[in-house]
């Protein structure tokens, strides 16, 4: 499969606070190849989000290496887009201005960025709201805007931290289909973190199960569906292979840890 786009080699991370040291990750190794959609599932507090922060260059590992195309991560990179659980749009900027914040901060060519944002807004059905303020948008629309903001810097790696968890069920399913198709046509490499097994199976080529804290890779599941083409997520949920994957992963998943849930 060639060289992985994202690789973690025996990565450990310990959070230090005045109350003590908490080991979030203990020797995690994983690889994501170009164009793959990989999900990490695990109970609350298994260090799922910590993995994304490490790849985004916001945290440095206590031990081990985090590599992008073989190069160690030293800080935030223009190649990596990181989408958080909630949109955290800036209320004082229009949708377009919000989406342009990344290119603006990185000093990219703004004319090109504008073109890219306009195209992405169109693909996500937000063109009519390009000049609206976030306060005028519904939850699903806000999350779409956040996706466009993440894609505006044209990253080839996308990190998604439970991007659907704050949405109602119907919106969640619709947006998952939309995002999946968009990211697939844009040939992005995607790493999604979730505690929703259905979401992970329906979207991914591979599902990595993380143990309870300190997080380590418990098992890896290749997700394959019969047929010439990968079904869209909504169809995948109804595919005959789905429930087998669901039960296997469910059996692997540790019950959630009760202490200090915010170390996600």
């Amino acid at each position, binding site marked *: 499969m060639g060289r992985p786009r994202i690789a973690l080699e025996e990565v450990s991370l310990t959070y230090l606070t005045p109350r003590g040291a908490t080991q979030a990750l203990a020797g995690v190794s994983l690889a994501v190849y170009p164009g793959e959609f990989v999900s990490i599932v695990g109970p609350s507090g298994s260090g799922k989000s910590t993995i994304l922060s490490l790849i985004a260059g*916001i945290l440095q590992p206590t031990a081990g290496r985090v590599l992008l195309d073989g190069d160690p991560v030293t800080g935030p990179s223009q190649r990596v887009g990181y989408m958080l659980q909630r949109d955290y749009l*800036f209320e*004082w900027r229009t949708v377009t201005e919000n989406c342009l914040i990344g290119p603006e901060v990185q000093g990219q060519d703004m004319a090109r960025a504008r073109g890219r944002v306009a195209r992405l807004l169109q693909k996500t059905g937000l063109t009519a709201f390009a000049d609206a303020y976030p306060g005028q948008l519904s939850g699903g629309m806000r999350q779409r805007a956040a996706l466009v903001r993440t894609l505006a810097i044209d990253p080839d790696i996308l990190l998604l931290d439970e991007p659907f968890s704050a949405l109602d069920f119907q919106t969640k399913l619709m947006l998952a289909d939309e995002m999946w198709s968009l990211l697939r046509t844009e040939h992005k490499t995607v790493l999604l973190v979730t505690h929703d097994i259905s979401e992970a199976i329906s979207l991914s080529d591979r599902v990595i199960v993380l143990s309870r804290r300190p997080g380590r890779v418990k098992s890896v599941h290749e997700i394959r569906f019969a047929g010439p083409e990968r079904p869209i997520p909504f169809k995948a949920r109804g595919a005959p292979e789905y429930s087998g994957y669901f039960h296997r992963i469910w059996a692997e998943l540790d019950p959630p840890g009760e202490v200090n849930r915010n170390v996600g």
Partner: protein
Amino acid sequence: MSDEALLARYRRAQRRRRWAVAAAQAALLAAFLLLWELAAARYWVNPMLTSRPSAVWQTLVSMAASGSLWVHVGVTLQETLAGFAIGMALGMGIAVALWWWPALAAVLDPYLVVLNALPKIALGPIFYIWLGHQWSVYGMAVAISVVVTIVMLHAGFSEVEANQVLVMRTFGATRGQILRKVVIPASLPTVMAALKVNIGLTLVGVIVGEFLSARAGLGYLIIYGGQVFQMQLVMTSVVILAVISALLYLAVTWAERLVSRLLHLPVRS
């Protein structure tokens, strides 16, 4: 009854209510002035001690005619606006520095707490000795507003949604970019609240400063009127001061509405 008719009736009731409140407010003022005038005229109270609205009015008219009214109002206004601007600018600068260097904030924290709790009026004589009669008023005005500004703004900066800052960090934003593009715009409601608090506080500082040392201004007039036992002068100055402080507060409120509308921020009452 149709919805339109119900809505029209509801709106009429709301309008009536607003008028009734305004009328009651006007009536209260009129009754107070009338009672004051009457009490002084009938010697229920000693007019030497209380003055009376008609005497206040006459004083106002003669001061306006002689031009002294404008001189004193001008002096107080200028001191207030300058003190306000300096206090805000200084406070904002220091608050930004504290945000930029958290270690500095940690070191200075207890000193800010003490300075904030200290009644700044106690510093009046020190400013008089250090700055002289001309500048001590400004010292007083700035001292009284700057610490509150620092404390309020630094708290506001610290309360900016951590994940909005995280969004910026994922893009590799520098500290300066995070400050300019997130922390300051997100804190504008706090800045506006600080403006509102400060315009009143600065006026307090200016009047106290004038009590202590000035040769002109409304605070000087009040002290002078008290010393020569001219209550109509004291009362007139207090009335002018009330009008000025109300107008300044209104101006800040308007500015706040304008900024909120321009930036699409929720208006904080």
